[in-house]
């Protein structure tokens, strides 16, 4: 397997706080790879190590064969990193920011015009070229930051929660740009706390409190779940989910508005489950089989993990 990036048994701690423990994954060239997980999962630590801002405590990371602890400058010249927080010069214009990073990455003057045009084209920032970066809207700021990380034609793009705090329209536009980039052969690692965005990735690793809980394509992860899931649409019973949770054969219950998602044990048949729940609640219920979403996968993985721990 021709992995562009390989992470092997990576661990990193801040003092006694274990940020990432024994994380391993591989990414092939041209993949759109997602690090999925809530805050504190270790996504940012993993990314910062990958772009050589941090050193692994143990384990190794390689990008195109370069070791992140040793070949720092090689890695920096082939990667583009976009941190979670907007980190460009607010008192320089869009154009000045782009040209400054082009200069630092030693983009040849002859190529610069063509590259700027391409970046302006997909980001649609051309009309704002002379606007100060600090005066851009949230979505435009993210597009400018992305443009700056693309100025040196990186092989690998590392984006830390690029759509957090961005409006839904801009988010959608941003993901379209990422798909376009992937089509051009750029390998992209993106982190996100949003499960719906995880579906846009080719492959994902689900992280929680510094550990990888699962990895694979989103579809395969859902498939792997195999857990029978049912929706119970009854606004009256929503408040009584604790009762349902105690019912034999039920693994977990989540509320989604006035709907309950019930995860049953493998092998439990629908009819007997309906009877047990009806008995527990004291009235008839209608269970509707549903396919688990990625969010269900995630929640059940975390529950499995915490049950293991206790």
């Amino acid at each position: 397997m021709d992995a562009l990036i390989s992470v092997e048994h990576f661990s990193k701690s801040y003092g006694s706080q274990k940020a990432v423990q024994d994380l391993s994954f591989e990414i092939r060239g041209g993949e759109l790879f997602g690090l999925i997980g809530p805050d504190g999962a270790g996504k940012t630590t993993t990314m910062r190590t990958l772009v050589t801002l941090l050193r692994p405590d143990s384990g190794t990371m390689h990008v195109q064969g370069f070791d992140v602890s040793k070949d720092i400058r090689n890695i920096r010249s082939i990667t583009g990193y976009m941190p979670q927080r907007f980190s460009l010069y607010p008192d320089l214009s869009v154009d000045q920011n782009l040209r400054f990073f082009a200069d630092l990455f030693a983009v040849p003057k002859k190529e610069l015009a063509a590259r700027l045009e391409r970046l302006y084209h997909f980001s649609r920032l051309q009309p704002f070229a002379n606007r100060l970066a600090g005066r851009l809207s949230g979505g435009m700021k993210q597009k400018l930051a992305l443009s700056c990380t693309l100025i040196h034609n990186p092989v690998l793009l590392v984006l830390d929660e690029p759509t957090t705090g961005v409006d839904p329209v801009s988010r959608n536009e941003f993901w379209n740009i990422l798909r376009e980039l992937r089509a051009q052969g750029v390998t992209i690692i993106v982190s996100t706390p949003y499960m719906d965005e995880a579906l846009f990735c080719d492959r994902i690793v689900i992280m929680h409190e510094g550990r990888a809980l699962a990895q694979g394509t989103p579809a395969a992860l859902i498939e792997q779940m195999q857990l029978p899931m049912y929706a119970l649409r009854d606004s009256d019973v929503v408040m009584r989910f604790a009762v349902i949770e105690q019912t034999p054969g039920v693994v977990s219950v989540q509320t989604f508005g006035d709907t309950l998602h019930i995860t049953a044990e493998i092998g439990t048949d629908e009819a007997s489950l309906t009877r047990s729940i009806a008995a527990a609640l004291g009235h008839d219920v209608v269970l509707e089989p549903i396919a688990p979403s990625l969010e269900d996968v995630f929640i059940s993985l975390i529950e499995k993990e915490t049950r293991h721990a206790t």
Partner: protein
Amino acid sequence: MQRIFYIIQKEFRQIFRDPAMIGVLFVVPFIQIVLLGNAITTDVKNVTVVFTDLDRTPMSRDFLQRFTHTPYFIPVGVEEDYTALPEWLDYGRARIAIVVPEHFQRDIIRGDRPAVQLLVDGIDGNSAGVALSYLSHIAQEHQAQVIALEPQLGRPLRTVRLASTETRFWFNPEMESKVYIVPGIVALILLIITVFLTSMGIVREKEIGTLEQLMVTPIRAWQLILGKILPFSILGFLEITVAMGFVYLIFGIGVEGSILLLFFESAVFVLTTLGIGIFISTISETQQQALFVGWFFMIFAILLSGFFIPIANMPDAIQYLTYLNPLRYYLVVLREIYLKGTPLHLLIPETLAMMAFGVGVFGMAVLRYRRILK
């Protein structure tokens, strides 16, 4: 190498992004020089004086009259009863009270030494001391006049002065403190610009997160450091050039010595201040913190430099401490070149001291900064 240029270009773009900045560049040194040059004065003038004349003779009146004829003293009152004098000092209406004793004239003619009592408000010890020396000067003048009367008195006075001194002050003939202070202000401008702009300029990149963005580019730590400090050094030198122009235009004080030497010494001094600026940036997370630490350092540097208070007036232990203050040497060098035209070979000890500090402080700060970048 080119990357340094790009950083410098970016810095200047940011500095001059604000058109007000150009105004600040020229207006600030102007105000500093006009205000500080005139306001910071160790000349003692207009000292308020209150008298009690218990003798009431021509000679005692003549003695007291002398205080009204100088710009140093302003007579603000006369008290019949000397017990009322302390109140004048208590309420701050007068800073010096003079009591001429009874039989002042008789004692002088007899050849005895009458004792004039002085009550001095010593809160500002420095100017009280200066005022006191003016007073004794006046008393001496009076005495000289009395001695001149000797033939008329028809008998020799017991206190005869054999020699008198005639003092001329060189390099600052009028003994004006602004001549002394103004080159110091030039030094302060350079100090403030380089320490504050450097530390805040670097911390700012940390604060807004661009430092991290710079670190993932192939730029090297030393390129980044040079690119950050050169613009502020250039600005600092531009600023002192402007300041020296104002000093000449406003006070008519030009540089006696070599301007080239002055710039050379300034460059040696700036090594230290840039080092301090970089060091401050390594221990601060925000620009406010950098500003605070910068002021903390600056106050010690200025107070222990001999800018206001002559080092010779400080207690011994503190005097030794001032040897650790690079500003001390720079002020000496600057005043020597500025006012006396002293050549380099007479300034070697100060220059070497500044070089030692410069290389030491700058080197350590850069090492620390690099370690933080890694």
